[in-house]
């Protein structure tokens, strides 16, 4: 039994029991929309959008966290000393999706808000969501950078208000002043951003408890 797989409404989680590798994948089914003043989507542009989203999400979320495993199971005993890595990515599908993703093609100078709705598993993105957003405030100014698609993926990976861990820039968030966080206006992952995933992992292997060991 080298792999243990859990299929959820919002992702599939695969644990390689030999290497310890944890792999979370979301299947995204796209709908392609047009903003004002743009030409129709080409097949190459659609492929490019998905590839760029995948690249940014992989860069922001994969191989960044190491998980500790404790417990009495063979899996825990095998991987307790070194810990296990976790990767997250998206796969483009045309059916049986986890997420219905609407992407609007817009002019470079245009702006559209991006969002997700956890309960219905819908994501709205646009073609400017790969552009780095710089957020500055205060005097002297302190600035933080963020790639919007990586932030929105964070919501889809379980950082949702539905579970009490949504946008951290809101005044109601206990992390409202942690501007460097990817779920605030920055780009840094924090241990708490893996809590929903940990909650699922901890139901997958009896005798194996996962926690975040470290983040780079």
């Amino acid at each position, binding site marked *: 039994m080298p792999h243990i797989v859990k299929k959820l409404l919002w992702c599939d989680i695969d644990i390689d029991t030999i290497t310890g590798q944890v792999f979370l994948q979301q299947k995204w089914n796209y709908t392609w929309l047009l903003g004002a003043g743009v030409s129709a989507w080409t097949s190459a542009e659609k492929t490019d959008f998905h590839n760029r989203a995948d690249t940014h999400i992989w860069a922001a979320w994969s191989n960044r966290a190491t998980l500790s495993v404790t417990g009495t199971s063979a899996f825990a005993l095998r991987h307790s000393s070194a810990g296990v890595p976790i990767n997250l990515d998206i796969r483009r599908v045309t059916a049986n999706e986890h997420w219905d993703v*609407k992407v609007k093609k817009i002019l470079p100078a245009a*702006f559209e*808000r*991006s*969002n*997700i*709705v*956890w*309960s*219905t598993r*819908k994501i*709205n993105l646009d073609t400017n969501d790969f552009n780095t*957003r710089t*957020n*500055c*405030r*205060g*005097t002297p100014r302190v600035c933080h950078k963020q790639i*919007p698609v990586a*932030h929105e993926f964070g*919501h889809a990976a379980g950082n*949702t*208000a*539905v579970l009490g861990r*949504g*946008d951290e*820039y809101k005044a109601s968030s206990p992390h409202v002043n942690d*501007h460097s966080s990817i779920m*605030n*206006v920055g780009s840094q992952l924090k241990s708490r951003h893996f809590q929903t995933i940990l909650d699922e992992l901890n139901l997958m292997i009896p005798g194996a408890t996962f926690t975040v060991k470290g983040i780079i």
Partner: protein
Amino acid sequence: MSKIPRIKNIYFYPLTVIFLFFSVAACSSDNTMGEGMKKTECATMTEVREWLGKKLSQAVEKLGSSSIEKTFDMNDVVIDEFRGKLEVLFPLSSRGNEPKWIKETSWNQGDCILTLWFEKQGDNWIVVDTLRWHKDSEF
């Protein structure tokens, strides 16, 4: 008298009256909600452009008291995805260190929320950006 006309007499006319009653009630309800309060879908976020340029007093007159109202200097808050259009309208490069005061006002409309952003122009707060969105949206 055949059977079919009798059925019409007994059942058709009461059903018609019930149908008309609910139709009129629905229209009346929609009309009294006013501009921007119509029960339209908000699964997809939309701008409500007819509000652009309107005064705060006009919004309150049409929509009633707001559910949430915040007034902030853009230089003192984080400009997140939700408020991102403000950064396009009033970029840091143009506003510099000068305070840029914005009033952000939201009205609950069932499962939808209408948010209007106002800029102070003279003695009036004027709508510069709008968004109608589902209450479960996360930005």
